């Protein structure tokens, strides 16, 4: 073996800054380049045309981390224009850190107006909730999705779940729920409850509570879902049947808050956060939808949210 010295790597430029792109105008409107927007737009149309079907797309890396809403963010950026009014929520709250961060980024690259008022928003990006206030036609609700595949619960392989969707073979999901009942006398799935869309595609509604599922069924707004890390887009158009999986003798149930009301605004019939007081250890409840709670406090809104089929048991 003859040890030899390598030839010198190419000479560095005189000033390394010369090779950087210019600082001004480095980011285009809504961050994504037009080609990326077009691809996302094409895929969204296919998702709308086949409700509940997961459409793969070439997810781009965003300046927020994978798993933190990059899917929802890409849809928002592909859709947004100067006339839009944006609302972003996380766990129902407008001022949750992640929601604030996403809002900050979108306004920075678009300059659009933001709001916390559900009724005033044209685009709503959400993680884990559907607002209590009923949505109107022309409003778009964009869900951040961590795991788009409802069958992942019973089957880890993408190849296999793809086949199951092709054949509408959802027997293993049914079996899972059935075994749950046998074991616990109850379906133990909390959030992320699987739903059947348009009587054909099994869909993961993202980790929204069961409380919110009735709002997906024949809603007036268009619901768009996107998982950035898993690179999937899917949709529920307005007036589309969305049914949680259930058995004839074992009905689907939303979370029970029977008898409880919001300690702040007094509303009944909203999804509640359970808050444990440091000092007393006492449990109190308040609306998870903070904008709804504010409105109710100011008396601008009826105190009853849209009935969500409260658990009667």
């Amino acid at each position, binding site marked *: 073996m003859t040890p*030899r010295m390598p030839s010198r*790597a190419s000479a560095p430029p005189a000033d390394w800054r010369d090779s950087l792109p210019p600082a001004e105008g480095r980011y285009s409107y809504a961050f994504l*380049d037009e080609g990326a927007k077009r691809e996302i737009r094409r895929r969204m149309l296919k998702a709308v045309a086949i409700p509940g079907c997961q459409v793969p797309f070439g997810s781009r890396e965003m300046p927020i981390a994978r*798993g*933190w809403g990059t899917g929802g963010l890409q849809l928002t950026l592909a859709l947004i224009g100067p006339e839009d009014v944006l609302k972003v929520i996380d766990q129902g709250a407008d*001022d949750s850190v992640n929601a604030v961060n996403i809002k900050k980024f979108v306004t920075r690259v678009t300059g659009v107006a933001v709001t916390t008022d559900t009724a005033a928003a044209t685009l709503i990006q959400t993680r884990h909730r559907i607002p209590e206030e009923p949505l109107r036609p022309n409003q778009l609700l964009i869900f951040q999705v961590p795991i788009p595949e409802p069958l992942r619960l019973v089957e880890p392989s993408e*190849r296999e779940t793809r086949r199951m969707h092709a054949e509408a073979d959802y027997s293993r999901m049914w079996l899972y729920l059935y075994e749950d009942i046998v074991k616990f006398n109850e379906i133990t799935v909390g959030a992320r409850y699987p739903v059947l869309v348009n009587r054909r595609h099994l869909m993961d509604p993202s980790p929204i509570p069961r409380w919110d599922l009735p709002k997906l069924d024949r809603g007036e707004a268009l619901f768009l879902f996107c998982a950035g890390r898993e690179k999937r887009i899917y949709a529920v158009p307005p007036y589309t049947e969305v049914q949680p999986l259930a058995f004839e003798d074992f009905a689907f149930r939303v979370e029970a808050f029977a008898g409880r009301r919001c300690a702040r605004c007094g509303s009944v019939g909203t999804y509640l956060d359970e808050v444990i007081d440091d000092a007393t250890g006492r449990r109190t409840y308040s609306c*998870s939808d903070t904008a709804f709670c504010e409105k109710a406090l100011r008396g601008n809104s009826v105190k009853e949210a849209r009935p969500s089929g409260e658990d009667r048991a």
Partner: protein
Amino acid sequence: MGYVAVRGGAAAIENAEKFSEVRRAGGDATLLQPEQIREQLHLAVDRVMGEGSLYAPDLAALAFKQAAGDTFEAAFILRSYRTTLPRLGYSEPVATEGMRVIRRISAAFKDIPGGQILGPTPDYTLRLLDFELQDESVSQTRQRIQQLLRDTERLQPLPERFPKVVEMLRREGLLVQRHASGEDPGLADITRQAMAFPAPRSAQLQTLARGETGGMLALAYSNMRGYGSVHPVIGELRVGFLPVPFKNPRTGSVECIGEVQVTEAEVIARLTAAEGSARFSLGYGLCFGHNETKAIAMAVLDRAMSGGEPAAPSEDQEFVLTHVDGIESMGFCNHYKLPHYVTFQSELDRLRRIQARPGRPKDEQP
């Protein structure tokens, strides 16, 4: 009230950002220049470029500085910057025989045509903490390097091209032919299409090329140790510079628009009886920059996934390809820090309901 504190908005976020800035640059030490990082922490820069999937040493150095040395973060910053860049075209394919080599070894043969070139490697350096670097003198270091360069000038120059070691085996008919894209004649583009399984080999190699070094190492190591059947021999490992030929859209002629440094590994492994006739099969690894661990791990994984029915995680194409991306895995791992109280409330509801039921099944365990 812990969870409520997570709300509270813009001010908290801005302060968190400012505190990170304090951690990065708040000490008494001289502030790092990206140029220093690019030249003296070049292996970190290479790793960031590879995992960030963008060949841009200056930007990678800047990202590394900004991320305070976290390669996951730095690669992530570089990747998200990549999203904003328009795609202007595609370079022409290059053969790696023409690599301007700075290091090239084979473990399969004692002597190889063109010779073994050790080049820069710490492989044979004792890993003793070098206290002299503590107060390194610029003049002494420069002097030592100049002396070394003068000494090597007397040696004969390296040849322009090095024949590929594995070509010798191929000519003898000892290698199984594998194609870049399997049955698919076109090349996949994992940055534009979500992967479908089974993925063509082009998509496999692209995914591995920008995979996270540590994650790939863990999977490849599991195979080498026994959860798998690849017993690799390094046919050839090269580090060097490749030209980037690009067709000038105006004139139509192909011009070299620059060079990229890459590491290339070719591992040879015997086919098992189940996989067909007794021949060697090749695993291929190539990544940006100087990163031998990654290139070898990539080659082992490429080979491991080429068999039939997977018998171990590292042989399962879907398992490997969906878990090696550092940007994705790191993002998802950290997203659990986000509040999940809505879903947790939903879980609580289920649990309370089950517990409230009279006559619970006796085998019920939490």
